[in-house]
């Protein structure tokens, strides 16, 4: 099925006026000469829905709100699909739309002034590193004892500006440049938010792991 076949009426064109953020997507990637009609939007939904959903879940903290955010993201993406350049990064384009939707809906959570106390560098390593024996893979030993629940809580506890940078880079695997394009900030800002966010994350991971008794 190709939901973008030429001549197909746009079923959601009456939802809302075109927001300015949706028009500023040209920095995401270089356009390629692929014909627009060759792009299969439905396949793009199925390929990216899990990534958008898990990110929305960590950002909103609610399954119901995450579903709503993801659905609205795809409806907007479909409405503005003519602005997407086939052959460029569709996942990054969708994340930019979802990020802006999140920011407009959850202004109370969205603050550039979010402050984080300075934390010791490499907090987890400083505290758990000595438990790793020479030649041992920490992912298979010490770190493997930290569970899904501890990691989820540590991520959700991060202020939104740091959380989104960590999710985009560490969970979704976007490059600094792609993350900067999605968040509409300079690459240096992404690096700084990642650094501070990860410092805090490591502190929380250690505290939660200690609390649940998985580390000594």
């Amino acid at each position, binding site marked *: 099925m190709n939901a973008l076949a030429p001549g197909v009426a746009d079923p959601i064109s009456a939802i809302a006026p075109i927001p300015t953020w949706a028009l500023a997507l040209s920095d995401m990637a270089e356009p390629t000469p692929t014909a627009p009609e060759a792009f299969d939007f439905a396949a793009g939904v199925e390929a990216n*829905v899990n990534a*958008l959903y898990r990110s929305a879940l960590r950002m909103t903290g609610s399954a119901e709100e995450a*579903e709503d955010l993801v659905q609205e993201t795809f*409806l907007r993406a479909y409405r503005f699909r003519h602005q997407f350049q086939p052959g460029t990064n569709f996942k990054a384009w969708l994340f930019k739309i979802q990020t802006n939707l999140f920011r407009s809906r959850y202004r109370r959570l969205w603050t550039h002034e979010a402050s984080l106390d300075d934390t010791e560098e*490499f907090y987890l390593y400083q505290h758990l590193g000595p438990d790793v024996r020479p030649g041992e893979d*920490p*992912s298979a030993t010490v*770190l493997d004892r930290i569970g899904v629940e501890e990691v*989820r809580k540590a991520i959700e506890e991060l202020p939104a500006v740091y959380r989104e940078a960590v999710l985009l880079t*560490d969970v979704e695997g976007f490059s600094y440049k792609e993350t900067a394009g999605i968040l509409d900030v300079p690459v240096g800002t992404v690096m700084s938010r990642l650094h501070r966010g990860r410092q805090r994350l490591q502190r929380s991971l250690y505290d939660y792991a200690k609390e649940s008794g998985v580390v000594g």
Partner: protein
Amino acid sequence: MNDGLDCPDCDAARARLEAYVDRELTDADRTQIKRHLADCPDCQRCFGFEEGVKTLVRRKGCPELAPPELVSRILEHLRG
């Protein structure tokens, strides 16, 4: 444990640890770091650990899948 504070090479390497783990360094910088890691067991352990933390966050941070009914609902909307 060497925290890298008393070794200029360790300091320089650890200042670029995150970019290394994120695969954001140039080939030349990456090679330089790898050369240091080959000679420094402490940094090798630290870098290995930080890569492990990144993997931990990726694997366990968001394991949920989108509900199948959400996908169906979106596709139905798109079909009009």
